[in-house]
């Protein structure tokens, strides 16, 4: 890319950034609207131009690996790369609270071993393929009810009216909290993970709202056990002691935050893809037996989640020194587009056979909810196609993409017959 800084001086600065990007290798911008619409060409440019691990000073500074092999290696660098602060932008020190950070924040995702290991063991039995089977019937009913609400209108916003509505209800029911509060949950999660990334005060506010909500729920389950996930976590012991309240509150926080934004982004991206790609939409109508590979391919192509690590010490990797405290963005979406590992990575191939995608991360922090997410995505898409096999994007210019931690479409206007 050539130096065009002078030519850009009369343009408004990129949102949240100091100036337009002129050299991706030293100055990528994870919130730039062009990057959010098409990050694929940026990653390809970095891989081919000899700078597969880019760096920026924006947003407190971070590193961005783009190659599959690097993501595989970096994910296994435990404990040199710590997960205690897995959000892509750190909270300013003044807003950090000790009882809501690291192990307490959102274990196991915000913990390193050994704390990571036992908090993960407590969660996993609820999220195995068999463990999520009991959520399937509810998810199917929910998807039908949502479609009932708009099918006669001949149009809807596939993000707001459908994709966004499914994961909050499924996880609320699993946790055992009031499903009637989904609008609040959506607001809180966007406050923490989307809008709050560049507004630390907002992020801290919603962090506190979520923790206060779950503090009350945990106190209730300690006194009145129920058949739900919060109760199960309250009853989890480590070395003969029940997990402390702040850790259980953090684990509930993780279920809500990680279980909502991410899955709705995957469902939304898939619907956006089919609304704009008629051949692929028709193929799924004609060959529904492809859903197994199609879901994995859509997860690969539109992988929504970028987690982060911080160097726990100075770490040498691939000729680079990550200084202690440096933020490394775990660009799993970028790894999924590496031509060294995926044939024609820029193409969605609904029957792709060889697909070792890493949309759910890899190593000990592999998404604990991946089977629930996969089930929700499969049910949401199959139910949509069963009820609304013909649909199209009615206003492509109205589509907006969120990004940073979780990339996905937030507005998808579609029409159908």
């Amino acid at each position, binding site marked *: 890319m050539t130096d065009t800084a002078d030519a850009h001086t009369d343009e408004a600065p990129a949102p949240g950034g100091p100036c337009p990007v002129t050299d991706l290798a030293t100055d990528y911008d994870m919130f730039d609207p062009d990057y959010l619409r098409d990050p694929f060409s940026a990653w390809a440019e970095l891989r081919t131009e000899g700078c597969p691990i880019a760096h920026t000073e924006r947003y407190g500074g971070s590193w961005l690996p783009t190659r599959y092999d690097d993501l595989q290696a970096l994910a296994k660098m435990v404990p040199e790369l710590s997960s205690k602060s897995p959000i892509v932008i750190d909270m300013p020190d003044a807003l950090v609270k000790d009882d809501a950070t690291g192990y307490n924040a959102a274990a196991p995702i915000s913990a390193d071993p050994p704390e990571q290991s036992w908090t993960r*063991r407590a969660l*996993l*039995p609820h*999220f*195995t*393929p*068999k*463990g999520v089977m009991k959520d399937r019937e509810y998810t199917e009913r929910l998807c039908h009810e949502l479609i009932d609400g708009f099918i006669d209108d001949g149009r809807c916003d596939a993000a707001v009216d459908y994709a966004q509505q499914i994961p909050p209800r499924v996880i609320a029911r699993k946790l055992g909290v009031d499903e009637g509060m989904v609008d609040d949950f959506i607001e809180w999660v966007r406050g923490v993970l989307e809008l709050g990334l560049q507004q630390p005060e907002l992020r801290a506010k919603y962090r506190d709202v979520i923790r206060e909500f779950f503090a009350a729920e945990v106190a209730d389950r300690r006194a009145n056990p129920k058949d739900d996930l919060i109760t199960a976590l309250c009853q989890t012991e480590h070395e003969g002691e029940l997990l402390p309240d702040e850790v259980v509150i953090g684990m509930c926080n993780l279920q809500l935050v990680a279980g909502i934004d991410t899955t709705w982004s995957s469902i939304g991206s898939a619907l956006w893809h089919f609304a704009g790609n008629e051949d692929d939409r028709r193929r799924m109508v004609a060959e529904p037996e492809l859903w*197994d590979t199609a879901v*994995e391919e859509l997860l690969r192509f539109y992988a929504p989640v970028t987690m982060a690590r911080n160097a726990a010490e100075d770490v040498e990797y691939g000729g680079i020194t990550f200084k202690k405290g440096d933020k490394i963005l775990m660009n799993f979406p970028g790894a999924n587009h590496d031509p060294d590992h995926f044939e024609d990575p820029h193409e969605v191939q609904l029957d792709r*056979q*060889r*697909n*070792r*995608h*890493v949309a*759910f991360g*890899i*190593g*000990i922090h*592999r998404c604990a909810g*991946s*089977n629930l997410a*996969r089930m929700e995505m499969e049910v949401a898409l199959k139910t949509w196609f069963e009820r609304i096999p013909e649909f199209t994007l009615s206003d492509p210019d109205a589509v907006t993409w969120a990004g940073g931690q979780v990339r996905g479409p937030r507005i998808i206007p579609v029409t159908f017959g």
Partner: protein
Amino acid sequence: MKIVIDAEKCEGHSRCYSLAPDLVDVDDLGNALVLGDGTVPEGLEDKARLIVDNCPEYAITIEED
């Protein structure tokens, strides 16, 4: 043909189980286990190769007879 799962590498993605429940099972934590001794029944050889090619942890290998 036999499939072998490296328990040290498996991180419980369950990709193999979702693609080939007739070849693998998962334990209470979601980690994969071969069914029986891992011998692939006749006719399921392609499925065995498919799960190898879809494991993000490179935890599954095939031993040819």
